[in-house]
């Protein structure tokens, strides 16, 4: 539950706000096409694209807001935006 007056007693926990809840479009990343240029990683305003331990890029959908900047920036069209299914 929320604290009285929405006070947050442990700063730095805005990670609890799952900003992905208002997404209309969902980016799908195809690692077979991906050339690991890191453009999406740099440009994602939510910082939610990260390489995993194998070097494959993964999108954290809890925080992806669906702006599709990643799709725009990907030089090899490895990212495609689709309509979010609820």
């Amino acid at each position: 539950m929320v604290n009285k007056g929405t006070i947050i007693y442990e700063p730095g926990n805005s990670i609890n706000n799952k900003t992905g809840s208002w997404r209309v479009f969902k980016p799908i990343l195809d690692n077979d096409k991906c050339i690991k240029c890191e453009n999406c990683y740099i440009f994602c305003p939510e910082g939610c694209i990260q390489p995993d331990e194998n070097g494959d890029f993964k999108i954290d959908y809890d925080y992806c807001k669906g702006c599709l900047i990643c799709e725009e920036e990907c030089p090899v069209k490895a990212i495609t935006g689709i309509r979010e299914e609820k």
Partner: protein
Amino acid sequence: MQNVKVITGTSAAAEAAKLADVDVIAAYPITPQTTSVEKLAEFVANGELNAEYIKVESEHSAISACVGASATGARTFTATSSQGLALMHEILFAAAGMRMPIVMMNANRALSAPINIWNDQQDSISQRDTGWIQLYAENNQETLDLIIQAFKIAENENVLLPVMVNLDGFILTHTVEPVEIPEKEKVLNFVGQYEPKHAYLRPEKPMTQGALGDPEWYMETRYDVQKAQDVALNVIKDIHDKFAEKFGRAYGNGLIESYNIENAETVLITMGSLCGTIKDVIDELKAEGKEYGLLKIISYRPLPTEEIKEALKGAKNVAILDKDISLGLDKGALFTDIAPFLKDKKTVNYIVGLGGRDIRKANIKEIIEHTENEAKDTETKWIGLKE
């Protein structure tokens, strides 16, 4: 020995803030509130009150400074009126949502246009959904007594909401009346020290206040304020009773005050200084053998609907007098709020005294006459209107 001073309502408010030993005052002068903040500035300047007086450039800044001060755990006071209160509107929501126990004196005054500095209650009524507790004083003594109680209500751990104490502009703010000033020590003993547990900015214990509340959380925070308003009903009553016991002055049950209601079929309902005039009329008519009652609303938010229903059990006709108007509906706030609970009675709405139009005893008698005879159920009548 009793210490009685013959003072204005704004001075009574300033005295109350001083007695409660506020830590921070931030206010901007506006008619008819000005004399109150002048008095407080004087208290701070001459060393009678050890508080920080923040000079600001507008009421928006005044209330913003108050929210900041309150967030550090300081006991905070401000005063405003009309356009000033309207300018605070945005931050009033923040103060309530952040659960800051700020106490404010509002000098009730009409809103522009046309520019009008005289009394009606449209300013505070327009802020009714901000989450603030709203109390209305009938006279200068009640102003002082309510402000002292307001700190205790606001800072109650289960309430933690800002409280606005309203007094009628000029009618109270600029009229002198004898006001008993209690001893400071006795007041401090009653109000107690404010020891915030929820909001307290300290370098060693950082916290975030006024954070983002996305759709996942916002609704719950509004519901929390509603729950606190519910709790406040009992807290206000309780604090009133304790105050009455300690200082020897009582006002109904703290939420509402009944006057000759048990003998009357026709009852008037209103708030603020108008209650004094109505009590006089009731006394006069009683001397003629006619029984009329008054139900004075002290706490408008939270609105004690159960108490109101109970108090009006014996009444047949109810005249609800509003010094405000919801344009486009042609009803005042008290009427729209109370009438749905009184479906078994004839309820009539009277719009009175807008922009300082005098409400005389003859007007009250006209209202009683009209309610009992020609008035239709749920009708609205504007009193003293030039056609």
